[in-house]
């Protein structure tokens, strides 16, 4: 009885301190709020409204998008590609991440550093790197000439896009997995081992469930970045039928603002929905970004 009362008191006193400082704190938020309102919320609202407008007496932008096999196809293709990239990145990054977090060996930190640098490479540069790897004058083309007598060129297809997206997703997964591994309770693994679990059992029963929240939220971000990645697709060629490129084409080539806005809103909505879903699944693990 007494302890309960005491707990309630200490909690409420903390809340009260916050209450007292709130007016000052709210002022500090004002500049950020103003910028977000003027340059983000307002334009976003404009975009949503514009997507619903009827142009030249035709249908609204949303209706045009939802009725067009071409736009829906590009949307589906983008989603599938992003999902496949996410899965592959989680697998590859997960294996390497657990390995790097759990093993100590010479050159480990250098390896970690090298693997995480590409996180900040912009999409255009990644696209160029894919061209160097699998383009007409790329490494694989030369390799193919040597081995099979034909140039292996797949940079300008969905395969190239896949490689590019994988390229900037892997570092993110490795970083997240390593951080999550460090916060994982090692004694759980030791307990499982002491109960006679083999290596794979430990991985399946302890490590993967422990990493799951981090993997889900990181996967969602990989998905989101892959959905919106315009730079890579732009470098690899504007013929690729993914939604960012479609938006760009509609906007610049046909100056069809309504459809461009509608496509943007739908792409943003899908991305955001996936992020929200991941948050729900992973709980508040706070690794978003």
């Amino acid at each position, binding site marked *: 009885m007494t302890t309960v*009362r*005491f707990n*309630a*008191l*200490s909690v*409420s*006193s903390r*809340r*009260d*301190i916050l*209450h*007292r400082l709130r007016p000052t704190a709210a002022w500090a938020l004002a500049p950020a709020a103003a910028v977000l309102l003027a340059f983000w919320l307002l334009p976003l609202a404009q975009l949503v409204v514009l997507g619903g407008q009827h142009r030249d007496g035709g249908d609204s932008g949303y209706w045009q998008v939802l009725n067009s096999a071409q736009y829906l196809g590009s949307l589906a293709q983008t989603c599938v590609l992003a999902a496949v990239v996410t899965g592959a990145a989680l697998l590859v990054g997960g294996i390497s991440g657990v390995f790097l977090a759990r093993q100590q060996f010479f050159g480990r930190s250098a390896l970690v550093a090298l693997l995480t640098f590409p996180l900040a490479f912009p999409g255009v540069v990644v696209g160029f790197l894919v061209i160097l790897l699998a383009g007409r004058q790329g490494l694989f083309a030369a390799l193919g000439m040597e081995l099979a007598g034909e140039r292996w060129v797949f940079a300008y297809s969905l395969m190239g896009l896949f490689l590019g997206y994988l390229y900037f997703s892997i570092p993110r997964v490795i970083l997240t997995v390593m951080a999550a591994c460090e916060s994982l309770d090692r004694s759980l693994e030791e307990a499982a081992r002491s109960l006679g679990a083999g290596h794979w059992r430990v991985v399946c029963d302890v490590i993967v469930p422990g990493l799951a929240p981090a993997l889900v939220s990181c996967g969602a971000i990989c998905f989101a970045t892959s959905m919106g990645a315009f730079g890579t697709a732009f470098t690899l060629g504007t013929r690729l039928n993914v939604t960012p490129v479609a938006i760009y084409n509609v906007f610049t080539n046909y100056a069809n603002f309504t459809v461009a806005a509608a496509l943007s809103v739908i792409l943003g909505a899908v991305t955001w929905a996936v992020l929200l879903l991941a948050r729900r699944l992973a709980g508040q693990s706070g690794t978003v970004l």
Partner: protein
Amino acid sequence: MSGTTIRLQGCRKAFTDGTVAVDNLNLTIEAGETLVILGPSGCGKTTTLRMIAGFERPDTGQVFFGDSNVTRLPIERRDVGMVFQNYALFPNLNVAGNIIYGLKIRGLSPAERNKRCAELLELVGLQDHGQRHIHELSGGQRQRVALARALAPRPRVLLLDEPLAALDAQLRERLRSELDQLLRSLRITSVFVTHDQGEAMALGDRILVMDRGRVAQLATPRDIYQQPANAFVASFVGNLNAFPVIEPTAHGLKVSGGELPWKGIQAPTTVYCRPEHLRVMDDGGHLRGRLVGQFFQGAQSRLLVDVGGA
């Protein structure tokens, strides 16, 4: 430093969830006096200190420093010095930087600041430590820097919120006596919050014992110990034996384990006594019991005796 009288008039503080931390508190702290607020966790002692400091504003009632009403004044304009439980030293400043902080705000010239800083370092015995970083200091040294920082701007009132709680037992003892000497030589009005009765006894001119947001007793340490106002004060300060009275008899009171002599008119329901007021006898005592435990404590031994009953 001359002291300021602190007066709390009918102060009440309830939190947003409805719990009342302090209820109808009337209190006068005399100029130059050291008042210790003692009580268990959650009794409202910290809230009382925070109301005096200006961190909390009472829902009703007023706070006076001398003749001026400071109820609506924020802490930065109350001219108080405060020592925090975890010291709250600024990790980005060195020792001298911490001590000078308050002087800078009061607009003292660099020469004056350095002079005052040197004075205070000497006062707390850290003459050569001015350029040290906070993380290089031991717990006791941090405690002294916190004290020096609070005293540097010559505050009207010194507030100490469990300042010794984070130290180990031996160091606590030593700093306690140092602090006692310092407060006595400065004659500054100070309020000291603690849950440690030993600290309260040693430091306080008077002790305010609080229980569930109310004053249980306000008296000198001696009176608190020898004439506690109620069972709560008696049991919180020092050890206590309680004997529930089963029934009054012709010459005394029947309690479990025997009979106590009693000549009053109205019989009490419980008899309390300090352990040191009981004497172990070979034969012929008032109470009989079975020795179930014996704890050697150096200068004295503690005996656990079962006299039956609940």
